[in-house]
């Protein structure tokens, strides 16, 4: 039947692949299996075959793409500039449309909940009580990595949604609070507000915003993702910079047509302020800290130096654990959808951290943070680079509040 939606991978996108194979070794699923069927080239090849009418969009085709982490490690190494992430979203939209039973699957998780703050708050309250009473041990295995990787949800302070403050000498920033981010990772958002205001920005967290739509898009819910994008483009159109504190969200924002180059990850905004002298550099040597690169920061946005510069400004010496930055296996809903592969990748990543002998870890994405915490256990401290940075400033007596 071929493609049936307007989202499908285009011939131009797919033709950009000359099948050189240079992307194979950086692909986590190829590394796990050694199979073309689990490689970027293979997946693109399968998509092309659908376009040529050789292959149907069926369960088997869907299986090939389900196994993909969407980590986009295959993009920066591709000399043909193949837009793999876009093609993948297109193919997933086709799967949602064409494969029986796929249309409603996971919709509950990725659109209804994430789009609704009330549902998120309620869920978080449940989790918080569960944490307090020690009930999360009882979570079904499939979800346990998530519950065991969660931060302590008590004492998070107020949500940032609706916040407005700061001078604005350095320009205005619209902060995407994120759906899960403002609930489960509220301290990261609060830190972002503090630092951006210290750096001379006017920071607003407009209430008219919604979920960035990344998880919906990755899950083939192209329609929902477009609706989210439209609403956010409107909410954020008047800011000099639109910042997200989760790498997964900032990567998705960067793909919005309406925002153009104003979208930035928080690590980019903070590193820029440090470079410009708008934020201080600590003189104290705080020792070593492991740096983990979230795929959506390093591969999707090619942001590599910024988190390191932030740690250095905080007085830490960043310790590298993985030259190619293989995915940790968190990858959105992957922990639940492909528990086995996720487990193996999570263990690999944890082993890399352990062999460094350092117990403090910086990670700029909530999914990675949870995966790391869950696999590393309580002896390790995992936080966002900007949190380590602000804590260092406060220790030096140079924090704002």
């Amino acid at each position, binding site marked *: 039947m071929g493609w049936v939606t307007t989202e499908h991978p285009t011939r131009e996108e797919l*033709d*950009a*692949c*000359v*099948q*050189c*194979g*240079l*992307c*194979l*070794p950086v692909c986590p699923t190829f590394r796990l299996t*050694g*199979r*073309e*069927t689990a490689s970027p080239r*293979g997946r693109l*090849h*399968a998509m092309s*075959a659908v376009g040529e009418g*050789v*292959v149907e969009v069926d369960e*088997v*085709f869907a299986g*090939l793409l389900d196994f993909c982490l969407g980590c986009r490690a295959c993009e920066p*190494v*591709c*000399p*043909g*500039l*193949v837009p793999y992430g876009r093609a993948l979203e297109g193919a997933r939209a086709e799967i949602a449309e064409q494969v029986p039973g796929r249309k409603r699957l996971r919709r509950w998780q990725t659109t209804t909940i994430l789009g609704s703050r009330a549902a998120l708050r309620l869920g978080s309250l449940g989790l918080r009580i569960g944490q307090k009473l020690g009930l999360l041990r009882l979570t079904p295995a499939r979800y346990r990595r998530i519950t065991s990787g969660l931060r302590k949800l008590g004492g998070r302070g107020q949500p940032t949604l609706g916040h407005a403050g700061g001078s604005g000498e350095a320009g205005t920033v619209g902060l995407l609070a994120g759906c899960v981010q403002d609930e489960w990772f509220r301290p990261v958002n609060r830190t972002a507000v503090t630092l951006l205001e210290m750096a001379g920005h006017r920071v607003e967290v407009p209430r008219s915003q919604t979920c960035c739509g990344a998880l919906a898009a990755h899950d083939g819910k192209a329609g929902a993702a477009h609706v989210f994008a439209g609403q956010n483009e409107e909410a954020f159109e008047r800011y000099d910079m639109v910042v997200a504190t989760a790498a997964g969200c900032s990567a998705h924002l960067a793909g919005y047509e309406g925002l153009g180059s104003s979208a930035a990850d928080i690590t980019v905004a903070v590193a820029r302020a440090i470079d410009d002298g708008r934020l201080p550099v600590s003189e104290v040597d705080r020792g070593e800290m492991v740096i983990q690169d979230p795929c959506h920061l390093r591969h999707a946005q090619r942001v590599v130096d910024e988190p390191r510069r932030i740690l250095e400004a905080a007085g830490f010496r960043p310790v590298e654990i993985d030259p190619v930055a293989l995915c940790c296996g968190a990858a959105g809903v992957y922990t639940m959808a492909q528990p086995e592969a996720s487990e193996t990748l999570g263990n690999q990543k944890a082993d890399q951290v352990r062999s460094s002998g350092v117990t403090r870890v910086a990670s700029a994405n909530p999914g990675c943070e949870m995966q790391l915490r869950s696999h590393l256990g309580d002896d390790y401290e995992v936080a966002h680079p900007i949190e380590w940075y602000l804590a260092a400033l406060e220790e030096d007596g140079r924090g704002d509040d």
Partner: protein
Amino acid sequence: MSYLEALRGALGEANVLEEPVELHLFSKDASLLRGQANVVVFPQDADQVSEVVKIAEAHKVPIVARGAGTGLTAGASPTEGGIVVVTTAIDSIEIDLENRSAWVGAGVINLDLSAAAAPHGLHFAPDPSSQSACTIGGNVANNSGGPHCLAEGSTTSHVLGLEVVLAGGEIVRLGGNAPDPIGLDLKGLIVGSEGTLGIVTKALVRLLPLDPDVRTMLLAFPTVESAATTVSQVISAGMVPAALELMDQRMVQAVENWLQAGLPVDAAAVLLAEVVGETEGVEAEAEIIADLGRANGATSVEVARDETHRATLWKGRKSAFGAIAQLAPDYYLHDAVVPRTRLVETMSAVYEIADRYDLTMLNVFHAGDGNLHPLVAFDASDPETNRKVHEAGDEIVAICLKNGGALSGEHGIGIEKRDMMRTTFTELDLDAQARLKEAVDPSGVFNPSKVLPAGSRCFDFGGVRRKELPEGVWV
């Protein structure tokens, strides 16, 4: 029992793929020619490969070995159908520090081997531009070369021994750590045989010490000729740099578009040169190359500042083929080799052919050893363009042969070059090769129809005289 059932029994269902989509993905390598696999298997060790060979022979089904599928001559394309045997699961590395060698599984990725050897101060010298992806098995089968093979020789110079599964499922070990093992050099027969004689499961390879120092430099030239002349003069000056790689303007532009490394996109040609050794020697040599370049009109000479800068320059060179995708959906790459002294005239002739056929031609090649890679970027879905590309291709090969060159520098023959074998070899030569193939693979299951053109075997030798090979030819 069908051979599919037999395979499932021998390898377990998880290691046998049969879904049409899955088979489609294994139907070609990095070249254009597509075959059709009947089944794809992932043996975990030599014993399982042996089982697969026995099953294939019993049922008379072809076996096509496959590593990473980065081959450029359709060697791993199952053009006659059959069983595609993927070696990626055979991936052990055992380093023998005393002998500076390693037994390596066929499925090990070239660069992974060097990474594993690096902590011991060693590396595997053959470095095809695809080294981040291609496997040792593929390197051995194609006797692959790379930029650094100018000084170190191609894969065959680095293979000391092999574990091979031959006809009948027999697992043999050929060669070894001894400098000159007794008997015939049978491993030499397997290296470069492109999967037509057996399946390599392990290779004993030589590891060389990492170079104490290195200088990598990029020279920009106003003409392709001035770059090529510099290459000849460097070699005539008695130096064997670790690498001498040339890219023409179109190629540099495509690479720069992706890499954003500030490459000189205005130059007609760019030469990437690398010298290795002790610091003083390296500095002196780099100086000579820079001087020769300037004497030939080089507009800039840039020496890599540090390891990151060096890595970036190499990344540009090694990703060149892939960058073509920005220009057109398909490419046809020639892998011709000419004596270095004929480089300049061959290049001019090649450009002339492309212009005459109105084709987009890019060049990137191992200039040091005269290995050209003229590359045509085109859209294969247009039959008229297709025809032009192939006609121009035949002319390019003809001109290379006329200038004393050979059919393949390093990518092998596979199917792409198969029918051109007759232009280099006499019937007698081909017959000898076909008899060899018959002797080693009596049932003819190993990668049939590759390398040797149909009808290579002739039974009547009367009147066939040996065609003289042109002087300086590489075969």
